[in-house]
């Protein structure tokens, strides 16, 4: 959501919670299950939703994958996107909106094309995540194409402070790498290839530089562009000598 641009929504002190002030628009019709006769759904989206529905004994289980598919298709879970999912799944749009708004990764407001989730939970914060978030927001300079959000623990405290850039985990990100990172995102390039989680060996924070393009998953670019940027000793975590590590990689 736009209000989440730089913050997990935390309305602890103030009294404004989005949505609470909204009345129903009495000129609209009630939102019932959209009729297939009047709700066009793009064929590829329909096919994807139907393939998800087929995986479960109860097709309602596909609501999250279906909403995620619609989000990929429309950029966010817009009312139109939700109506299309509702039509294919024979659910009400309200039901699906309720589900979408429960989950942090389903966007119920328009957002930028690229998502940059910066973990600001305890472990990352202890390593300077709050500054990293601020630096990224600064560097982005209000580019509406970037959806920058502080996020709860992303499960990568070993590379703190870290961010998930369109699903690719990078870290530890030093403040002076932020400019490069944002430029790479804007240019559609792979973010900080040297900092990507993919090729890290277990428990070796210093071995963050991968041996080469990794083969894990679909998130990595076919070719990591250029040699990894040299890492200056700027990381908020005090780096240690590698040979102090207790274990050797087998």
């Amino acid at each position: 959501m736009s209000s989440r641009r730089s913050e997990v929504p935390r309305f602890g002190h103030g009294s404004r919670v989005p949505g609470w002030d909204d009345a129903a628009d009495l000129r609209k019709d009630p939102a019932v299950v959209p009729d297939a006769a009047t709700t066009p759904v793009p064929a590829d989206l329909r096919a994807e939703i139907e393939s998800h529905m087929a995986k479960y004994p109860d097709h309602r289980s596909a609501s999250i994958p279906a909403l995620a598919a619609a989000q990929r298709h429309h950029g966010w879970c817009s009312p139109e996107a939700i109506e299309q999912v509702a039509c294919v799944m024979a659910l009400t749009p309200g039901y699906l909106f309720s589900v979408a708004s429960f989950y942090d990764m389903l966007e119920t407001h328009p957002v930028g094309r690229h998502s940059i989730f910066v973990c600001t939970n305890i472990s990352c914060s202890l390593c300077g995540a709050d500054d990293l978030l601020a630096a990224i927001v600064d560097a982005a300079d209000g580019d509406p194409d970037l959806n920058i959000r502080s996020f709860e623990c992303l499960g990568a405290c070993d590379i703190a402070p870290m961010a998930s850039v369109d699903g690719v985990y990078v870290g530890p990100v030093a403040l002076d790498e932020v400019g490069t990172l944002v430029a790479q995102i804007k240019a559609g390039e792979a973010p900080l290839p040297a900092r990507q989680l993919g090729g890290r060996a277990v428990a070796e924070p210093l071995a963050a530089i991968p041996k080469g393009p990794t083969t894990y998953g679909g998130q990595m670019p076919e070719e990591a562009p250029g040699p990894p940027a040299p890492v200056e000793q700027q990381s908020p975590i005090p780096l240690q000598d590698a040979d102090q590590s207790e274990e050797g990689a087998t």
Partner: protein
Amino acid sequence: MPRPEIHMITFTVDGREVRAPENAMLVDAAKLGDVEIPVFCYEPKLGQPVGACRMCLVEIEGIPKLQTGCSTPVKDGMVVITQSERVKEAQEAIVEFLLVNHPLDCPVCDKGGECPLQDISFGWGGGRSRFIEPKRHFEKPLALSPLIAIDRERCILCYRCVRFSQEISEDYQLILAERSADTYVSTFDGHPYVAPFSGNIIELCPVGALTSQPYRFRARPWDIEGAGSVCTLCPAQCNVELTVRDERVLRVLARQHPGVDDGWLCDKGRFAYQSVHVDERITRPMVREGGELRPVSWERALDEAAGALGRAGAQSAVLAGGGATNEEGYLLQRLAREAVGTPHVDSRAGGGPGRELAAALGAPALQATVPDLEHAHAVLVLETEPVDDMPIVDLRIRKGVRRNRVRLAVATPRPSSLDRNADVSVRYAPGCGEAFVAALSAMLGGEGKNVDELASSAGTTVEALRGVTGVLRGVEVGEGATGSDEAGPRDIVILWGERLTQGRRGAAAARGLLNVAARLRLGGREGAGLLEVPVAANGRGLREAGVLHDAGPGLSEPPHGEMAAIDGLELPDGLARGDLTTLLLWDAEVDAATLAAAGTVIAHAAFLTDALRAHATVVLPAESYAEKEGTVTHPDGRVQRLRPAIGRQGGVRPGWQVLADLMARVGATQDPADPGAGDPRVLTGPMASRQLFEAVPVYAGLTLEELGGRGVRWPAREQAAAWPRADAGPFGLEVPPGPVKANGDLRLGTFRSIWAGPEVGHSPALRFLVPKPRVEMAPADAQRRNVTQGDHVTVGHNGAALHATVVLRDAVPRGTVFVETDALRAGPVDVRKAPPRAGPPAPDPAEAPS
């Protein structure tokens, strides 16, 4: 599924031994020992407890953590403590937490004085708050719909309303948005929450977050009185409590009756009380003078009416309908038969099967009850759309499917709102119900050879029929569902619409239905049987009171013997032929052409329609149900009592009194020598009831006291044995005529929505729901005719046509269109783009061309 058996156990609550049904939730079981455990989110009507509010925490010996009393089933020997320091602390904590967010604006809150949050804060709260942070403040109240206002500050997130929308009415429109402390109750993208049962959430809300727009700020609990009665706006006859202030009905609440409504109301029943007090209501008698209806005295109006009836004698006809009480029906047929001397009495404008078949269909052994719908093995919904025709029953069917896995088959011409819940939904051509039941009967009886032909007569397929029999027999769809039932009889309820047995072939359809019942061996089976959805709200009661052309009270042989009587269906012809000249309409509606054909029209009505304004000779003001006393009979045979909640408006008089006066007057006219000849000896409402109970053998011995607030199901009484015996089949069935050939045209099906009827149109709050004329059609049919969603079209044939807006529905079978109208008869129709018109796009249905 069959009802669970109940075992009683003994447990201890606060040192008291209490006997309670095993597995009852502690909250309910404790009540049996006079111990109250406070609750917010718990509402057994909503299904499984959710344990969200945590208000009901109690201590149970042997369990270290406090437990929620709302979700803990009581067991034998359980020891429960609700008064310990620990419990008290927890309860105070929950109240404190709930009030953290609550504005405490009780002085300006509609709920004040009848608010569970107030009561529980007082009874179980600590009486103090340590919360000093700023409270949240929002705009309030906001419209959630034209009927409901929402105040999100007050909401304590007990989820009752949302659970209702999702698990009871299953409209899934009301939702929770966001999560955590930011969670709020909302709808999709600002759409209003408009659904047939939406108003129930107002009653469910335990705080003042959801309030009724029409009731807001109209009264405080100490200004009002509650009056229990029965809603007679549809055959469901829900039990209601009318909130009355200064002789005005301001609100309608449910008066929970598990045998009738399960504690819910539809929005028509909840909000149409407004029509009681509108200016449009007729409150004085009127007589046509100089071509116009003018108010006159009662004496004058009664004289005119009695004079006309007396003069016409056997050329007069009497038609009753709507919510007329049993007493009115009984007196009405006496008026006709004894005083006026005419046999032409009916309560079914659409006709129906003869006395024998009516008796067979209504036989006590074959009657299912409303709760049976919830516990049956299978339910067949036949030729009715419950949500339109008898709304509350729609919720009962959903409940059975959801909670007890009742298997559901739906067989209707028009796509049904229950399709999504049904194991099998089949469509047949409009008007082909008779062929459908014949085909079903053939398939159940194993008369395979005939099935093909019958199925195609019905405009359906053998596959579809096999699906239905599979559900009824409890066999998986497709698996040899034909043949005799080896599994033995099952609890099956057939909910059928009276429309099935209307019309000229009504008797044949009734025989088909009886065959189906016989083949399924429903007769005499507890928990199984037929449940009719009559067209008129008190259709069953009126028939039993003797308002039938071929039967007297209790479906006895008619007093006029062999004398041929004209029934409701033939009435227009009778008038056109001149066999009839005078028409007495008692809360019944007929079309303008029929009225025009009558020389004299005497109408007892609450609202003046255009047709009455043009053709009525005498108009007698009718009571609203809020003013009535008497009894009505529920479709499952429950005789229920109406009690007046308010004084009669203006010059309105009780129906029984008007009828008694008319009888006396007509009688005196008929026999001037004996002025007391027609005196029916009815001087009070209870006297009318007593006469009715004496005249209808199966009601014998009933008293108003016995009916009380809950009613009595007569088929369960001993006196039910007095019901006339009738042949219940199986009958040999003829092959019914197939669906009308459409020859490139479309087949028309008609229906009547829940929002039809004068009470909705005359209630300001509900007026927005009055249906606009729409024609529902399949996308392919629309494309062929070059029309699309939202287009204005004419629907009709040979001159008779109406204007409507196209609504495309994927589920409408090709070749068929559906229009909500009484103005067109089923048959082939043409749909054409209407020439663009100036002014409002479509007339109101009330004014639709006829």
